[in-house]
């Protein structure tokens, strides 16, 4: 089976500094991929690059191939012009944006905004047909149909995010990219929106790229996960194996910093240091300056390679059989 989306060597630069630095991944039909990392690691940039929506100051390169259901030949997104991309956007890939507050035009009614997108990509010009489509979508995402006649500010944050999901589904895409879809919501709403995404993915056979800094959110929803650091994927694999047996020190430290229910009281300390400035990345492994296990070998760039079944990591020392205590390792590293 061929995959739905194949991305290889995706690069985004801002005045010569790499923001996304050679990202490769594949996504199967109906699969949910989680993209995790600290803010500024290039997650959102990657998402926007997939739809070629980057601001003009950013330049992107690399190949992106989309094979939507029913399409005779694969769509080479990398080569598409702006006009060509307009046919792909929303028809095949749609986006649920992080800011639920500002993702809709504040001075237009919601149904008008949805009808605009529907009419853009289908021959359904009739008001009745479009109206029925909109009310179906509202039922699907669990909103009263009357909400369609409202303005965005008249809805709550959770309702607005449901509207965004309905909007994302209105042209039956094969891939939905959700960028921090729950960040602005309270915990109860977060859970509801995530369940909704999960349910829709199963019933509609959607592929999903879920972007979040919250590993907990990704763990619940995704099949596979990719951890990004400083513009690169440092580890990827099935969610369970990555969570249970991380193979990159960054993943390991990220997971350690999560609060564990029933575990020790208090939060584990966050990872010391800050991500590197994209203008002057460190030599070799990007994580080296913050890594407690760094050794001389790390001055060479580690490739992303398979270290366990379906799991890859970009670390010279993977696979890790056992993780030494980070503080002891750091102290030993300093002595050496």
């Amino acid at each position, binding site marked *: 089976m061929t995959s739905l989306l194949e991305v290889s060597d995706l690069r985004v630069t801002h005045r010569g500094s790499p923001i996304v630095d050679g990202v490769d991944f594949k996504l199967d039909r109906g699969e949910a991929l989680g993209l995790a990392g600290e803010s500024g690691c290039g997650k959102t940039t990657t998402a926007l690059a997939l739809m070629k929506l980057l601001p003009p100051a950013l330049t992107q390169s690399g190949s992106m191939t989309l094979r939507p259901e029913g399409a005779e030949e694969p769509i080479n997104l990398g080569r598409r012009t702006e006009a060509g991309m307009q046919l792909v*956007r929303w028809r095949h890939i749609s986006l649920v944006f992080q800011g639920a507050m500002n993702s809709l035009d504040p001075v237009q009614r919601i149904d008008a905004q949805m009808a605009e*997108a529907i009419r*853009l*990509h289908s021959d359904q010009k009739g008001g009745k047909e479009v109206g029925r489509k909109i009310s179906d979508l509202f039922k699907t995402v669990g909103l009263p149909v009357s909400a369609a006649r409202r303005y965005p500010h008249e809805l709550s944050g959770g309702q607005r995010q449901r509207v965004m999901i309905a909007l994302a589904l209105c042209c039956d895409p094969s891939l939905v990219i959700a960028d921090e879809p729950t960040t602005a919501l309270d915990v109860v709403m977060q859970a509801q929106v995530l369940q909704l995404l999960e349910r829709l993915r199963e019933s509609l056979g959607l592929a999903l790229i879920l972007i979040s800094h919250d590993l907990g959110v990704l763990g619940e929803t995704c099949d596979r996960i990719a951890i990004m650091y400083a513009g690169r994927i440092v580890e990827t694999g099935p969610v369970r194996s990555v969570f249970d047996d991380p193979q990159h020190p960054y993943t390991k430290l990220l997971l350690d910093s999560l609060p564990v229910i029933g575990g020790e009281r208090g939060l584990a300390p966050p990872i010391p240091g800050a991500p590197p400035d994209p203008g002057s990345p460190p030599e070799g492994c990007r994580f080296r300056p913050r890594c407690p296990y760094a050794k001389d070998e790390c001055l060479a760039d580690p490739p992303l390679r398979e270290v366990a079944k379906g799991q890859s990591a970009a670390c010279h020392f993977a696979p890790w059989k056992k993780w030494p205590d980070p503080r002891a390792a750091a102290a030993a590293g300093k002595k050496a």
Partner: protein
Amino acid sequence: MSGRWLAGKAAAAVVTLVFVIVFNFFLFRVMGDPTTQFTRIPNITPTELADLRSDYGLDKPLLTGQFVDYIGDTASFDLGTSQRSRRAVWTEIKDALPWTLLLVGVGTLLATLIGSWLGVIAATRRGRNSDNGLLGFSLFTYAAPEYWIGIILILVFAFWIPILPAGLQMTPGVEFSSWVSEVTDVAEHLILPATAMTLMLLGQYFLIMRSSMVDVLTEDFITVKRATGLPWDRVVSRHAVPNALLPLVTLSAIQFGAVVGGAITIETIFSWPGLGELTFQAINDKDFPVLQGVFLVFSAGVIFANLLADCLYFYLDPRVKAD
């Protein structure tokens, strides 16, 4: 609720207007003693002066007499008599007002349309040569005195290349054969003053619209609209512009004061028979009743225009109606 917002604005406008009326009285009575005007009349005797004073009600006590009279007169549109023409000030104003409205209306309309259109163009081409050129041009028109621009327009288009009239609202002493030729004649006379007015206001509208558009274009919903596959020009025209218009409406209210200032100077150089020209003559003749009346009408006009802008905002932004 929806209506309350507008009602509040209307009430505030009325209060402001009342303050203008009160201020107007004390300004002219306290700072300028009206009797000084009569002493200029040659060979005036003290008894004649006293008669005049009582004619004008100046012998009454200031607050309980003169102020009460003034409020009553103003409420019935009696703004006194012009010392120059001996006509009622309100009649003079009524005759002049339509001409000012015509000039100000045409100038504001053109400036809004052209200015915001150029602002959209500049914002979508930010940092490029066309943007920088427009910025420079608008800063220049913002800094240049409008009457200077007007004088240059007269010099160039009325004398150097004599294709347009140098002043007045219509050709004097002509019997027009039909209303069409009359309208054409007025339009011809309107071109230069309206151009000066437009150029004066253009820069501000342009700068406001440009910065407003620049703000809107960084909003998330613009990216979402682009993500739906909407072509860029339609993202701009259907979503960015309607949102960018909101600050334009609010901020253009600040412009109304400048519009009045422009009306005074531009009408002066073009001998356009509006309120501005009336003001200029009153300045020259020290015709205080006219100055007082004109100040009142200008202030009321600006207050009313502000209220109108509020109404427009109310109509354009659904968020106002909610709370």
